[in-house]
């Protein structure tokens, strides 16, 4: 019996302990290496974000403001300044110590408002600068192109200002998320106000920027106004950056239309609206009614560029600095103190996207896109200036209230250019995601 007994020596105890330790640690090692197997996993004490905005081109105004907002978000995430919306955002696990304890650094790129240039600068930020997330926009063509690239590269894309239905419709991707509202929502929000202000018997003429955003904006406005009983007189596509729109505006004069819908944005919007007013459209009477101009997508920066021409014009916007909720006030205070001017809606959405991404990483406990996507899908939050908001899991589109605004007739300051006419509740702008088709596909969290 004694011979069958195994002697438990100090050596065997050490061996058993080492083997057990190795066995227990093995899964963790594999898990850790699995977690690290994603593109640009941050090493060291910093994490790099890529801000891809138009610094030149038709949407450069918005791009400059977007960049200001991103810089402010980085400052707040790293614990600088007064914290801005970090103090109002809930539920939030952000602590003001960077993201997951790593200090936030950033690199920037110029999209030039061109898809090719945007892809090239995003590629550079991913491959050369090691950006773990790309964010930015100001043109839907650019946003869709960049979103596709980020999906292929295996990094998260947090869209900035992009309003086309396609971004979270037929071109949606699992790695891409949009906080900004879209063309469908603009139409749904504007419809009741247009009916109330201009009635049911109208003839609309559309001038439309000839790219994805313009097409979906025109389609959404056409569907909305025709549902009201309006007739569509004509839809005309105009090249982006046309500059002089006179040859497109003159046919409107004798078209029989009594409403001009300008599906333009940025520099194009400023030029087409200013020139439409110069051609006397707003002084005209057609079909016994005053001729009206509608700008479905409005921003304060555009209003500033268009000057007097914007007064009284109806449109919709994602957010306005004059909102009086605590979150908006906190953001305006931070941004104004930093830059001496209130933020635009483009700045707002970019700032919010940066915070949402950081929070999702904190919630996931990793920068791995697979886990970050899970954190963001279906995430419900408040305290970001738009009331209760949800990142719908089925298309990665944020749903929240939409503002209908009018060019202020009596501004009290150089920034007081838009007055909020109506806050359209979220329920009125919701839709079935299947109407725009597309497929999110699988998450791409591969190594790069």
């Amino acid at each position, binding site marked *: 019996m004694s011979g069958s007994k195994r002697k438990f020596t100090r050596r065997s105890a050490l061996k058993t302990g080492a083997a057990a330790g190795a066995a227990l640690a093995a899964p963790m090692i594999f898990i850790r290496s699995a977690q690290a197997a994603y593109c640009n996993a941050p090493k060291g004490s910093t994490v790099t974000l890529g801000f891809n905005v138009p610094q030149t081109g038709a949407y450069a105004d918005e791009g400059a403001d977007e960049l200001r907002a991103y810089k402010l978000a980085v400052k707040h995430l790293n614990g600088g300044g007064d914290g801005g919306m970090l103090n109002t955002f809930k539920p939030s696990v952000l602590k003001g110590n960077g993201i997951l304890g790593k200090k936030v650094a950033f690199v920037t790129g110029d999209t030039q408002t061109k898809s090719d240039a945007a892809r090239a600068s995003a590629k550079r930020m991913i491959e050369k600068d090691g950006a773990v997330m790309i964010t930015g926009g100001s043109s839907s063509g650019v946003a869709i192109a960049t979103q596709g690239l980020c999906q292929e590269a295996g990094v998260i894309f947090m869209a900035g200002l992009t309003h086309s239905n396609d971004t979270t419709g037929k071109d949606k991707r699992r790695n891409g998320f949009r906080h900004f509202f879209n063309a469908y929502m603009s139409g749904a929000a504007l419809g009741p106000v247009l009916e109330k202000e201009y009635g049911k018997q109208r003839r609309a003429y559309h001038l439309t920027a000839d790219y994805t955003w313009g097409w979906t904006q025109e389609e959404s406005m056409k569907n909305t106004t025709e549902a009201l009983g309006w007739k569509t007189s004509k839809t005309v596509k105009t*090249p982006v950056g046309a500059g002089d729109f006179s040859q497109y505006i003159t046919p409107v004069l*004798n078209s029989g239309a009594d409403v001009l819908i300008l599906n333009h944005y940025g520099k194009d919007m400023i030029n087409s609206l200013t*020139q439409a007013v110069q051609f006397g459209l707003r002084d005209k009477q057609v079909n016994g009614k005053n001729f009206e101009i509608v700008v479905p997508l409005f921003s304060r920066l555009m209003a500033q560029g268009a000057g007097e021409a914007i007064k009284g014009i109806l449109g919709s916007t994602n957010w306005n600095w004059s909102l009086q909720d605590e979150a908006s006030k906190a953001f305006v205070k931070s941004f*104004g*103190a930093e830059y001496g001017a209130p933020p635009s809606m483009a700045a707002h959405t970019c700032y919010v996207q940066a915070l949402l991404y950081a929070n999702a990483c904190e919630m996931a406990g990793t920068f791995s896109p697979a886990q970050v996507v899970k954190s963001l899908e279906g995430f419900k939050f408040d305290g970001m200036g738009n009331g209760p908001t949800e990142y719908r899991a089925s298309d990665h589109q944020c749903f929240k209230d939409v503002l209908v605004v009018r060019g202020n007739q009596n501004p009290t*300051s150089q920034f007081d250019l838009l007055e909020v006419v109506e806050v359209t509740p979220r329920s009125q702008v919701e839709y079935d995601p299947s109407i725009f088709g597309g497929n999110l596909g699988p998450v791409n969290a591969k190594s790069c």
Partner: protein
Amino acid sequence: MDAIVLQILNGLDKGGAYALIALGLTLTFGTLGVVNFAHGALFMLGAFCAVSFNKLISLEQVILDATQKTAWGTALEVRTPYVEVWLGDVGTALLNYSVPLSILFTIPVMLIFGVIMERGLIKHFYNRPHADQILVTFGLAIVLQEIIKHYFGANPIPQVAPDIVAGSANIGLWIGLGDSVVYPWWRLVYFAFSAIVIFGVFAFLQFTTFGMVVRAGMRDREMVSLLGINIERRFTIIFGLAAIVAGMAGAMYTPILPPDYHMGMDFLVLSFVVVVVGGMGSLGGAVAAGFLLGVLQSFASMNEIKSIIPGIDQIIIYLVAVVILLTLPRGLMGRKGVMED
């Protein structure tokens, strides 16, 4: 009929800009034999002369009103232009007329710039191949663009026409077409301005001794030099004149198209097409082609035309250029021997 009249008017004001730029291009090519790809940049510089003049006379006195706060908690800034503080209503009028008044600022600035450019850079390329001239002037255009972008930013800077010409003229009533043909006053002003400048340049070349010498130099430079005339100096002045014409065209165009650093390039390509269609070295050809292509471009934008040939508005100028060059290889009014070596 209304639509046709309106598109003709559109074409004329756009053609006015094309003609003015092409006129300057042809002057430099005809006299100096230089293909100046920086000419669009001169148009852009002129536009920024108007912007600078406006910024200069709009310098503001800023008073902080501690009784009112901004949304971010600082005292509200009350801004009043100094010219209004110092000159009252006269100051307000100066601000209102800043675009036409900027011409007085643009002329000397562009003259000096043109002369420095010719003496400092262009003259070293007189006897070099056209390819070298194109490269160096194109490079200069990019440098000028980047300088403007650095100081004024990338965004367009709107300029406002004087109140008196801010609205639209009811042209339909003038020509018996009812009140359906209206056209912005400033665009009519621009067309009249282009016509006056073009007439002035032609008159200068046709009816002055200086112009006669320059025309002689354009025909036979060597012969004029052999007669003891310093043709080089005259050609330098002509380069300055071309810069002035481009600059004035740019300054007056600012209420129509808010200027940005890239506007020169947008016009340059079209203006070269205009010069080629008009005939290299032909001043009359440049002007005629400018207006012709401007009007054709406007007509091509009509819905009726675009419904037959979609996208024709984007290519019409190049299409017409191809057709004209196939049928008239020297362009509309080109002279034999120019750029044919």
